[in-house]
């Protein structure tokens, strides 16, 4: 544990700390950020009305569009001269939003990422290869500062040039790999084609995040790389990686509650849901100075894992994120996340973990096709065996997700590989529109 005095504090002490920090934070944003002042005033809410943590429910939400409209710096809560670093969201779903960090923010972020790495089992003795992209994306620099703070030997290789990643993994005796789970698979695949068995290398832990992935994908990565693969969570609007992390128990991600308040809400009614129930994740930052967010609706779907973790940390755990509401497919009225399709594919021998969901239109009908690679070690000779595999995949998706989709088998490596976040859904319906 990197900061045991904080990570194992009693719930009572933690809630006192949260309340004190929340009150300060609300007062600061009300004074310093015009958007919050306007929102609070419109809702008839005054920061001093917060007397208990439950009063947070009276505070208006912040949404992604608020950050976009504030582009680039309108939601910063400190003067420009106090900002020492800027990052931005990946902008996959529209205009990017910009986030700024004060020197204190960078310090706290480093601590939280060091905590994340320690949570995954890393120590100062480790060699950490940071294969998240460096740049405006928070992944690379976030993991980098955390790894240095932990005292580990840090290799800032960034994403891309996969053959070199494999070479470094081997030559530098890397013990911890930090990247997206889909990039980890590409690294593993590239190692195989280079004749290198990752399982025989010193690598022992993967710190994977920045995109939704399934339990089946985790098992697959753990098997081909011979490592423990740990899920980490964060988003640039809230800070970047280091908001929550699995510990070695791999049973939910501890939310670093001394710095963030997590709420799970019903995205329709906007009411909080009880622990254990699924909903949209909402975060309030308690210590951020540059760009605090208050009740920020992440659009990520998860739930609080009830009960305490055997690792001794008292921070509550959120379940691995199932997907973002933006990625949710509505297939003939049924809500489906790509990660659920992934989970089904992982359990079927003969198909590889690489897949893509292609949405198209045939006449006025929306069509959904799941393209999946046949596994290189699939034993096949006859068309009917392949047709049976196709039916197995379609049948399993129908049985588990209650939707019928087309299934197309494609050659190994036919699905485009990603060096960062994988593109799981291709929407051809808007083509030419």
């Amino acid at each position: 544990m990197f900061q045991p005095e904080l990570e194992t504090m009693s719930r009572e002490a933690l809630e006192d700390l949260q309340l004190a920090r929340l009150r300060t934070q609300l007062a600061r944003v009300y004074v310093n950020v015009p958007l919050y002042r306007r929102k609070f005033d419109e809702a008839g809410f005054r920061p001093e009305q917060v007397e208990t943590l439950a009063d947070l429910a009276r505070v208006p939400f912040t949404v992604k569009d608020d950050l976009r409209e504030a582009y680039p710096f309108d939601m910063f809560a400190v003067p420009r001269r106090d900002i020492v670093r800027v990052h931005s969201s990946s902008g996959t779903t529209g205009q990017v939003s910009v986030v700024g960090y004060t020197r204190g923010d960078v310090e706290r972020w480093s601590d939280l990422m060091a905590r994340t790495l320690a949570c995954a089992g890393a120590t100062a003795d480790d060699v950490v290869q940071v294969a998240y992209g460096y740049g405006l994306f928070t992944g690379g620099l976030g993991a980098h500062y955390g790894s240095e703070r932990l005292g580990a030997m840090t290799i800032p290789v960034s994403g891309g040039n996969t053959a070199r990643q494999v070479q470094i993994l081997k030559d530098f005796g890397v013990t911890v790999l930090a990247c997206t789970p889909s990039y980890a698979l590409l690294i593993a695949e590239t190692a195989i084609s280079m004749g290198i068995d990752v399982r025989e290398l010193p690598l022992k832990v993967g710190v994977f995040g920045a995109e939704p992935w399934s339990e089946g994908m985790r098992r697959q990565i753990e098997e081909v790389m011979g490592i423990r693969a740990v899920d980490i969570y964060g988003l640039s609007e809230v800070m970047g990686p280091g908001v929550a992390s699995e510990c070695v128990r791999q049973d939910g991600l501890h939310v670093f509650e001394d710095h963030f308040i997590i709420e799970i809400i019903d995205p329709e009614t906007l009411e909080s849901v009880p622990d254990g129930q699924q909903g949209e994740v909402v975060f309030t930052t308690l210590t951020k100075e540059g760009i605090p967010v208050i009740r920020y609706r992440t659009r990520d779907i998860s739930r609080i894992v009830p009960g305490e973790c055997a690792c001794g940390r008292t921070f509550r755990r959120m379940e691995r994120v199932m997907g973002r509401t933006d990625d949710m497919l509505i297939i003939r009225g049924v809500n489906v996340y790509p990660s659920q399709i992934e989970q089904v594919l992982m359990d079927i021998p003969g198909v590889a973990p690489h897949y893509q969901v292609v949405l198209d239109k045939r006449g006025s009908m929306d069509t959904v096709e799941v393209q999946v690679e046949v596994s290189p070690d699939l034993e096949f000779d006859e068309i009917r065996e392949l047709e049976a595999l196709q039916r197995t995949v379609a049948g399993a998706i129908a049985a588990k997700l209650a939707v019928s989709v087309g299934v197309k088998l494609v050659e190994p490596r036919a699905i485009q590989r990603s060096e960062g976040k994988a593109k799981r859904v291709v929407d051809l319906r808007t083509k030419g529109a």
Partner: protein
Amino acid sequence: MLIEQLSVFLQNEKGRLAGMCRLLGDAGLDMHALVVADTAEYGVARVICDRPHSARRVLENAGLAVSVTRVVAIEIPDRPGGLAEVLECMGACDINVEYLYCFPRRDGVSAVDIVRVADPDRAVGCLTAGGFTLVHASEIYEPDPV
């Protein structure tokens, strides 16, 4: 007694078959027979070639999904009804043929029939007992290590 045939999964798209043939050609591997079974989306190319295991490695390293299947090779009597006799013999042994294809031998006179059955060893016994001539792998290609 059995022949090793490669089965290669190919998407039914322009250039895929050419790509496979180019890989084998560049590796100096000669094909003796090639048949494609296809659907609208994909096909299985079945290949009899020199050094099947080397060929498998070449194709797999290029990222293709390849299986090696053991098939029976029979010399077909060169007269009307020759193939019918072979099939009747297997029918009498209650052996169902999944697929078959034919290619000429290098001597240019006789033909070899490749037969895929569920239990190739039983087919070999049945055909030998029926007096047919089976073709050894060494007569067609150089058997190479796995």
